[in-house]
């Protein structure tokens, strides 16, 4: 697969646009520009798709990548540590049957990225799975369950929004949206609770009637639905009222018709989430920890400003209850590697729209085309010895032979762990009347004064990324590898002490470099951030570049009229 010696030369030297790299942004732009009628050549110096959002399709591929990291060949990534407890027999020795993704992104239902994919007619190219609950590790002392728990007083403030949410949920339940068209009604992950591990954890459903807030030892489900808030026994009625009011604030903070909330927001933009939640809407610290986990920032609540937190929380709460057949879920993820799969499907979409992708051919140098052929503005020399001319060249600095600048920001530690059991409690359906079983979940081990929290994105075998009966943990933190390992141990120890880690790959990603924008006529992309959810800023950056090239944002990713007609004909 890495032998490109007999690959033919490029069909043309002359292009409207040369894109170097096959990451998320590069691939989005390739599709958009091809569909807009530009001639596009998309290259990648690697022999695989995805760049920093790539996936490895066997453990030995992951090992090889780790070796490249440690010899300094992967820009911005350092200190790869592999620990393998895989016996000889597993997967024929090279560990096939795994998809270890560097970008297992969650995608919120209410996100500009998903909206764009829908409009671009691209959602059918993926297997979408629901992301289940968020779980936070909190001890009984931290929660300090109050003596008087149930009552009705505090629920009153919630009644209105709760009812609204329930209505919305039942409405959307009726029309089946594109993402899960034709799926089996109950995906096979629903084998839970049969193995020995469930007995060890001992799941207890708290609360009342139809909406239990789940707890497995110290891992507590974050009260995220309105039903949760209304019924959790961890909350006093006073807390319930405050939390309800805060959630109302979250969905209205930038609604100009709500002067009270917009004013509170303006006054507290730079206030930390922790301070804000202990003063303006005073709720107990453990709930602050839970709320903070929904932002997916790998920082302590005291380091997250309200301005940063609110758009994230709003994305969560406006998505909640909207996904057909799984109202307790707010986000989706793409099977077979998250954004790694996204890059591949987009590259194919670009090819379908007339683009050419070539792997294993990087840009060696780039200059303006003053003496060369034709009237193209830029001249790129490739590692293969070929020369290409283009009006536009787009890529990350590291893919365009440009200097990569670093910033002094915090680096992020990441880890991919193959767990030898399926940890089924993480992927249980929350409500009996839901038709979709989650294939991913978020578990958070909060930090303390010295340590940042550790986020663990768990992905089940249903995603196709590991054999059934196992699961994958993707850890993200600003803390150390030791803290990351400790967090993984905590999840395994508490819930499934017999489970071991079969394989782990840890690595460190440098803080993103400062924005460059353009250099010598080339468009320089910001490296993809290490965010756990795919951010709208990714799309925004692409739109900006598209506008620069096409003169308008209109028509971004639009399917041509001719193709749309062809598709309609086939639907009949």
């Amino acid at each position, binding site marked *: 697969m890495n032998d490109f010696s007999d*690959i*033919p030369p490029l069909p043309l030297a002359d292009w409207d646009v040369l894109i170097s790299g096959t990451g998320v942004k590069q691939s989005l732009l390739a599709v958009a520009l091809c569909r807009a009628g530009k001639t596009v050549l998309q290259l990648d110096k690697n022999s695989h798709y995805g760049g920093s959002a790539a996936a490895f399709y066997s453990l030995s591929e992951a090992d090889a990548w780790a070796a490249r990291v440690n010899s300094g060949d992967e820009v911005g990534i350092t200190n790869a540590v592999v620990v393998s407890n895989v016996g000889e027999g597993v997967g024929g020795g090279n560990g096939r049957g795994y998809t270890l993704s560097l970008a297992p992104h969650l995608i919120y239902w209410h996100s500009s990225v998903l909206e764009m994919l829908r409009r671009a007619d691209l959602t059918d190219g993926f*297997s979408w799975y629901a992301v289940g609950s968020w779980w936070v590790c909190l001890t009984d002392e931290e929660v300090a369950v109050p003596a008087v728990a149930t009552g009705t007083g505090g629920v009153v403030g919630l009644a209105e929004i709760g009812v609204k949410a329930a209505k919305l949920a039942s409405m959307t339940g009726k029309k089946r949206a594109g993402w899960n*068209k034709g799926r089996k009604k109950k995906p096979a992950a629903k084998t839970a609770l049969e193995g020995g591990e469930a007995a060890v954890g001992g799941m207890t459903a708290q609360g009342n009637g139809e909406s239990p807030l789940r707890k497995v030892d110290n891992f507590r489900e974050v009260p995220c639905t309105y039903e949760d808030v209304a019924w959790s026994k961890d909350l006093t009625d006073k807390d319930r009222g405050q939390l309800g009011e805060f959630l109302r604030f979250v969905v209205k903070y930038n609604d100009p018709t709500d002067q009270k909330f917009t004013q509170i927001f303006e006054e507290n933009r730079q206030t930390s989430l922790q301070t804000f939640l202990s003063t303006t809407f005073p709720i107990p610290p453990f709930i602050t920890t839970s709320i903070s986990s929904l932002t997916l920032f790998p920082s302590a609540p005291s380091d997250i400003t309200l301005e940063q937190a609110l758009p994230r929380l709003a994305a969560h709460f406006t998505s909640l209850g909207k996904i057909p057949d799984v109202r307790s879920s707010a986000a989706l993820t793409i099977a077979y590697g998250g954004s790694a799969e996204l890059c591949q499907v987009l*590259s194919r979409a670009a090819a379908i729209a007339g683009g*050419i992708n070539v792997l294993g051919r990087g840009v060696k140098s780039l200059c303006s085309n003053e003496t060369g052929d034709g009237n193209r503005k830029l001249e790129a020399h490739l590692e293969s010895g070929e020369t290409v001319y283009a009006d536009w060249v787009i890529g990350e600095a590291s893919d365009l032979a440009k200097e990569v600048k670093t910033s002094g920001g915090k680096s992020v530690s990441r880890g991919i762990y193959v767990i030898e059991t399926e940890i089924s409690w993480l992927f249980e359906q929350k409500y009996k009347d839901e038709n979709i079983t989650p294939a991913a979940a978020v578990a958070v081990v909060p930090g303390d004064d010295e340590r940042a929290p550790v986020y663990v994105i768990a992905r089940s075998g249903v995603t196709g990324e590991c054999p059934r009966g196992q699961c994958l943990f993707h850890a993200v933190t600003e803390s150390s590898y030791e803290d990351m390992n400790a967090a993984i141990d905590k999840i395994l120890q508490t819930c499934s002490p017999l489970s071991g880690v079969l394989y782990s790959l840890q690595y460190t990603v440098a803080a993103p470099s400062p924005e460059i924008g353009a250099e010598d006529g080339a468009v320089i992309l910001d490296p993809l951030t290490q965010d756990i959810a795919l951010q709208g800023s990714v799309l925004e950056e692409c739109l900006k570049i598209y506008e620069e090239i096409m003169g308008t944002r209109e028509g971004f990713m639009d399917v041509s009229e001719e193709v749309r007609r062809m*598709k309609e004909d086939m639907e009949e």
Partner: protein
Amino acid sequence: MADPTIKLLLIGPSSSGKTALLLRYVEDIFDTDNATATIGVDFKVKKLSVKGKLHRVFLFDTAGQERFRTLTSSYYRNAQGEVEKYAPPDAVKCLVGSKLDKSTSSRIVRTEEGRALADRYSASFYEVSSKTRENVKEPFVDTVTRIVETPVLVNGGAGAKRGTTALSPPVVSFNQREPPPKSGCC
């Protein structure tokens, strides 16, 4: 949406006539002037009646990605993919030798060689000409029939819902009759 659907992939070297066969089969077009590498859409749909039951066959073309060996692994997956995610060992395969209309002397693969290759991979074997229409329908009809006769593919083993997709995309591979580009099969 009630008709069962089947996903067929066309794979093979560049310029072996995959798109030509696809367009001849689905739309009965043979366009020598406009030999583009792509068909502009992800797949074409053909309705096919097998044993009295109508099936919707989704025919996926490579979009020219085989040219630089950049076909994505996602191409091989079931579009509405359920679960069987590993290499499809039970996919139904059919080997097709194209450009049957060319004279025997210009062929580099003889019929017996093609048949022997197909046998080795438990594939059926056809020689076709998109230009003259000869044998164009047979490989598709045969492949779909064999899929329909393999319940694990049609029902998705675990019981696929809504009459949807076979789990493993059956594969139609191409064989080369003409002096090919240097590479062999993808």
